[in-house]
């Protein structure tokens, strides 16, 4: 097995050497439209370092077998690697192996939670009744919004939203009013994929727990960028996606407090999650297996373990410091360019953020702006980034988002700024 030791022991204070780390990512050597690739779309999907590519391939070339169901040597070795991967990924967010359920991604994890709650028997503490309230926020990704809309429809529960201030921060005063005795579930994102703002999740969790509501956190945009200790945070359930944290497609994690997972009925059913099956009924295993029907993404899970070892090898504190530095450089440059409007407060240091900014180019549609940047090798995302209500809130249908990761450099940011300066002149506005 290839092991991930991207840098020799560095303290949390040492800046990371992104130029050196780029060598671990083969795709970053690509040329796009005659320019070097400037990849600023990591919030959509991150790129994968060699230790991740190698771990998965190594497994497939030497050990691959279906897990948990066989006595043969490969099956036993594959099972060990798969369960070690579970422990590793759980450990990455401060959790124990039994608290980590494999999913195919964050969307799947959130649907699992919503459907499982929707299927809870009337006597269960999780069951929703008409009039019960589910609270989410005005800044969510559709993955943490539509499953709750559907759950509300199915159960007669009412869906409410914590509003956001103009600066992009959540309105905690309003949250304190909205979260009340009828609130049964509070679902919120740790970091917005459009604003990059790190939300005050401790406060929200405290408000929810005061009224006995279940907390569900979308950690997609925090897991690759911030140190996480989910048990310490006290959140009940949290999800993340492998492909956004240097890992493979097709795998993600659902973290749950033991009592909560224990109380949740199964969602997907099939092989490997049962104890006894007759033609007419089945009995189910305890968590995490209860939620893992059918063949799991074995190779991707092993790849994800390599990814979190890679991230841990560098250190999340250092990664966060590096990306914050990039975001600040980006902000400082963008606010100087005429006609650029940042989504969220453009003044410095007002809130904690990860390394991304979304912006509107006055008079130029986001698609056109993105196309212009692409002609210079700069990959950004354009559109509503699966957060349409948030864009509506800011009076736009689409924006340009530039998002960084540990492999981005100040040069990448400068290339972006230089190109953004050319957008409005090119389109004659």
């Amino acid at each position: 097995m290839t092991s991930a030791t991207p840098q020799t022991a560095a303290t949390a204070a040492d800046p990371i050497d992104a130029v050196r780390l780029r060598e671990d990512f083969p795709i970053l050597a690509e040329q796009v439209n005659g320019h070097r690739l400037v990849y600023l779309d990591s919030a959509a999907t991150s790129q994968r370092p060699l230790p991740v590519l190698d771990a998965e391939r190594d497994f497939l070339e030497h050990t691959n077998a279906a897990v948990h169901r066989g006595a043969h040597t490969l099956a036993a070795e594959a099972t060990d690697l798969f369960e070690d991967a579970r422990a590793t990924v759980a450990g990455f967010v401060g959790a124990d192996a039994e608290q980590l359920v494999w999913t195919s991604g964050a969307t799947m994890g959130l649907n699992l939670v919503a459907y499982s709650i929707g299927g809870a028997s009337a006597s269960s503490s999780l069951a929703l009744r008409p009039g019960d309230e589910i609270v989410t926020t005005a800044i969510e990704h559709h993955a943490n919004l539509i499953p709750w809309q559907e759950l509300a429809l199915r159960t007669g529960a009412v869906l409410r939203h914590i509003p956001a201030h103009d600066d992009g921060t959540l309105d905690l005063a309003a949250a304190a009013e909205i979260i009340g005795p009828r609130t049964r579930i509070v679902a919120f994102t740790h970091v917005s994929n459009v604003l990059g703002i790190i939300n005050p999740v401790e406060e929200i969790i405290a408000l929810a727990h005061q009224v006995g509501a279940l907390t569900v956190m979308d950690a997609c945009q925090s897991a690759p960028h911030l140190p996480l200790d989910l048990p310490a945070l006290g959140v009940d359930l949290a999800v993340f996606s492998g492909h956004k944290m240097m890992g493979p497609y097709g795998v993600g994690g659902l973290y749950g407090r033991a009592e909560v997972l224990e109380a949740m009925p199964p969602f997907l059913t099939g092989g490997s999650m049962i104890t006894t099956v007759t033609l007419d009924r089945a009995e189910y295993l305890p968590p995490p297996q209860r939620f893992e029907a059918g063949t799991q993404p074995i190779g991707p899970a092993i790849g994800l373990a390599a990814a979190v070892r890679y991230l841990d090898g560098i250190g999340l504190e250092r990664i966060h410091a590096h990306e914050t530095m990039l975001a600040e450089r980006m902000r400082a440059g963008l606010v100087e360019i005429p006609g650029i409007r940042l989504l969220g407060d453009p003044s410095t240091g007002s809130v904690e953020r990860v390394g991304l900014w979304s912006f509107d180019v006055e008079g130029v549609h986001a698609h056109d702006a993105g196309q212009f940047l692409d002609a210079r090798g700069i990959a950004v995302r354009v559109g509503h980034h699966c957060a349409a209500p948030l864009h509506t809130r800011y009076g736009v249908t689409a924006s340009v988002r530039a998002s960084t990761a540990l492999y981005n450099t100040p040069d990448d940011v400068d290339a972006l700024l230089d190109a953004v300066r050319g957008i409005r002149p090119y389109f004659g506005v």
Partner: protein
Amino acid sequence: MNELDALYRELILDHSKHPQHFGLADEDAEPGHSGTSHQKNPVCGDEITLRARVDGETIADVTWEGRGCSISQASASMLADLVAEEGLSRAEAVTLIEGFREALRSRGKLELDEEVYGDAAALSGVSKFSARVKCAMLAWVALEDAIAKA
């Protein structure tokens, strides 16, 4: 001409800045029947509402409203112009739309004939940008739908 300039021809930027036949015509006014179609690009939220008024077998006029990128706006404007200039029949319009779709999906292999497509021929360059084909198609899909309803 580099690829970006081939995409954003002067003509395209002109149309997107000065959209033609913008503003929906009154549905109940003469002549004939009218059909209206609303189309949306779910990725970016761009949308268009297009109305075709049909007099017998002839398309009398096309008007539209919408918002979106320069490609989608220019394409709608050019299409409305084309209909106004050529006085197309339903059948001719369907053929034109089919040809437009084929050229745009050709990944740069087919060029639109200026004789036939007028200003819209400038959209040929879009076919090399597969992510933008939907933008250019939006109005044409709307016309297809609107005629069917008229």
